[in-house]
């Protein structure tokens, strides 16, 4: 395959960035998207040019480390992570534009690498159950109906990649937030802190510079783990509950 890549290059956090074109003539359809970039980097280094920096780790679609905006879409054209895309899905496509995940809360560190630490701070604000090691009751002391366990699981598969915020015109991370609120809210273990959790996490979300949700739904389209939009409805419901209680 022959492809022209247009890749965002930016030397550092405060440096100006621009798209740079690279012509590739030997792309194999069996390469993963990131392997295609690996090969580009090998060639750049051979020529004495600095390689393109991008993040990835597991390359199995589970760690959430990768995340590129490909032709305008976070994680590209398929419902999966960037690392699980393969070049065969770009057959017939002669140019690909690659940019970092963009959101005000995610500053670019270099080239395609961004800072997503705001997502960790949102979890710190309440995305947990307060139970110290050793103080847990016997696992079977509380039954959890399968439907609740399954719904909790469906929300818990969020990989914290931040694509939802990058896809959203308001740069809102509400899908990420809703996923955590729903995961813990579906389980008996999450009940005692449920009201405070949603309020504190939401405050942190806003403080980090993420925007509000206006029900565009671009987040759920971009989400590689198919987190359903209804986790945001759940979040709003939980929020109303806690506001009624005056939290």
């Amino acid at each position, binding site marked *: 395959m022959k492809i022209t890549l247009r890749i965002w290059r930016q030397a550092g956090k405060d440096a100006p960035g621009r798209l740079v074109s690279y012509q590739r003539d030997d792309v194999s359809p069996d390469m993963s998207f990131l392997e295609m970039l690996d090969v580009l980097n090998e060639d750049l280094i051979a020529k004495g040019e600095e390689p393109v920096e991008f993040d990835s780790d597991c390359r199995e679609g589970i*760690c959430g480390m990768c995340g590129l905006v490909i032709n305008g879409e976070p994680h590209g054209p398929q419902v999966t992570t960037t690392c*699980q895309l393969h070049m065969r899905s770009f057959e017939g496509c002669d140019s690909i534009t690659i940019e970092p995940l963009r959101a005000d809360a995610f500053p670019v560190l270099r080239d395609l690498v961004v800072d997503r630490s705001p997502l960790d701070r949102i979890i710190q604000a309440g995305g947990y159950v307060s139970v110290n090691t050793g103080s847990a009751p016997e696992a079977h002391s509380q039954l959890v109906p399968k439907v609740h366990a399954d719904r909790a699981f469906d929300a818990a598969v969020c990989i914290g990649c931040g694509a939802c915020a990058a896809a959203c015109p308001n740069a809102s991370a509400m899908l990420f937030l809703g996923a955590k609120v729903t995961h813990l809210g579906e389980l008996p273990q999450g009940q005692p802190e449920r009201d405070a959790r949603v309020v504190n996490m939401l405050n942190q979300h806003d403080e980090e510079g993420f925007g509000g949700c206006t029900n565009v739904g671009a987040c759920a389209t971009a989400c590689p783990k198919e987190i359903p939009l209804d986790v945001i409805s759940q979040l709003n419901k939980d929020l109303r509950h806690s506001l009624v209680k005056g939290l």
Partner: protein
Amino acid sequence: MTDRTAGLFVEGEPIHDTKAPAGPIETRWSRRKFEAKLVNPANRRKLSVIVVGTGLAGASASATLGEAGYVVKSFCYQDSPRRAHSIAAQGGINAAKNYKEDGDSVFRLFYDTVKGGDYRARESNVFRLAEVSTNIIDQCVAQGVPFAREYGGLLDNRSFGGVQVSRTFYARGQTGQQLLIGAYQALQRQVAAGSVEVFTRHEMLELVIVEGRARGIIVRDMVSGEIETHLADAVVLATGGYGNVFFLSTNAMGCNVTATWRAHRKGALFANPCFTQIHPTCIPVSGEHQSKLTLMSESLRNDGRIWVPKDPADRDKDPRQIPEEARDYYLERIYPSFGNLVPRDIASRAAKYQCDEGKGVGPGGLGVYLDFADVIARLGVDTVKARYGNLFDMYARITGENPYETPMRIYPAVHYTMGGLWVDYDLQSTIPGLFVAGEANFSDHGANRLGASALMQGLADGYFVLPNTIRDYLAAGPFPTVAQDAPEVVEARSAVQTRIEGFLSSNGSRTVDSFHRELGHIMWEYCGMERSEEGLLEAISRIRALRKEFQDDVRVLGANEQVNASLEKAGRVADLIDLGELMCIDALQRRESCGGHFRVESQTEDGEALRHDDEYAYVSAWQYSGEDGPPVLRKEPLVYEFVEMKQRSYK
């Protein structure tokens, strides 16, 4: 030692674990916990611990130590602690809950694990692992880990990795992810509470030892390039495994040996480095561009049938056109009683043999078929989809082939490393104050690891073992304050700086990845599934040549003061090269087939693995003796008081 291995290593004093109490195995752990000194809660605030790694072992240890009131600093190289490689574990986690009333017990889990490790693990450690396994499940459930449940609301279990009881807890195919998120959330709760400080995108590059004690680490801020010193009363390494020495493995791209290797160079013994696990069901390599391999859950072997064409000439044919009689279902043929469900190492090796005979399929002839046609005909596509749908989808995405229609292709890949830093029963290395947890230590899996037991060990170490044993050490603290300009600190920091400058100024012609790939080829060829004296000697001389070439000819562009993946990789690959050599030396001295590895010189008449308990029932713990000195082999004899050693037989 044969003449040809002379000079490659020397034998030193044996070593012993002095911390595990003797006597009845059932009470050893409670007795050790009782004997271990306590630290008064008010003093804990004055004691600091550095934990490197945020996988299951590191995150759980940091959270627990933070809850107890110690001052904790936690480090990882990813941009968030939640991304540690534990996240990728699929299958499940064992625990001796006996919820199914199928005869499971702590003793049985202990027994299975010792046997699974092919009698090369310590009984005391393994018993403790089995004992605390039940607490892990309680803890994780309380944190909100959404394990699979039955309709009645109880936790579901399945049988895994060929054991006869159902003791594996799971969260669909994403158990590692859910367990890690539980530990990560517990960690973030401590960050919010102010007891743990997390440093992401920070890579440990050196250990600081002052007056014989581990007192800190030197790290590089992977964004700014700043070289920082962090000091504490104790250091815990929970930095995972070194499978990436093979370049292609199921490990994440960043997995490395640097933290433990740097500690090894400073005096920590490295145990059983050659014990690695090879998983039979991975998606084969598709070309030279391949950067990593993807594991397909072992459960596929429950229903899939493995075969190759009988005639190498059929290799490139459409498999569906190859008639039954022209196929060799070799596992079913050679191992009629276990068939496709033989243990991982046997399945892996058998696939290699078929490919060596030229019958391998797919690119490069490195693959065998895993065929679901029979089960689809028997149970229908829908049932198969319900069982394996997500795995089939993943396979289709990666290979572009539809496994419902054409057989999958699989090939073995490195998956786990049983070796690691030597630790005593307290998880303390031979450097006082340096503790090692999770896959980074060597302690519990012997020569082979049972499925679903690495997650168990990581969380056992981090939640329950280490927090109890480290207090015995910390009770003597706080230790005298170390100044940032103490000679030991300055020396460690400048060693790191010199090394980085060396990479950046070497101006060679080859990329770091090209060296890594070459190292991987050598290791896979000679120190992989099958080893021989001949091959290992060849590997050692090639690795030495590679090291020399790396030093002279590596090319790392850019500067230290920026995000620079090549620079990060250069340090990791340099350490992996050194480790690779030690692995080959370790494999060389162990002239027996045992656990996950096969020595050609040690086989039964019909070609099966032959262990030699009379000569090799020991842990090989290696001591570093400088860049030029041969490593020193220190043997820890293994004694079996509760489990009788038996040869495996699967025929």
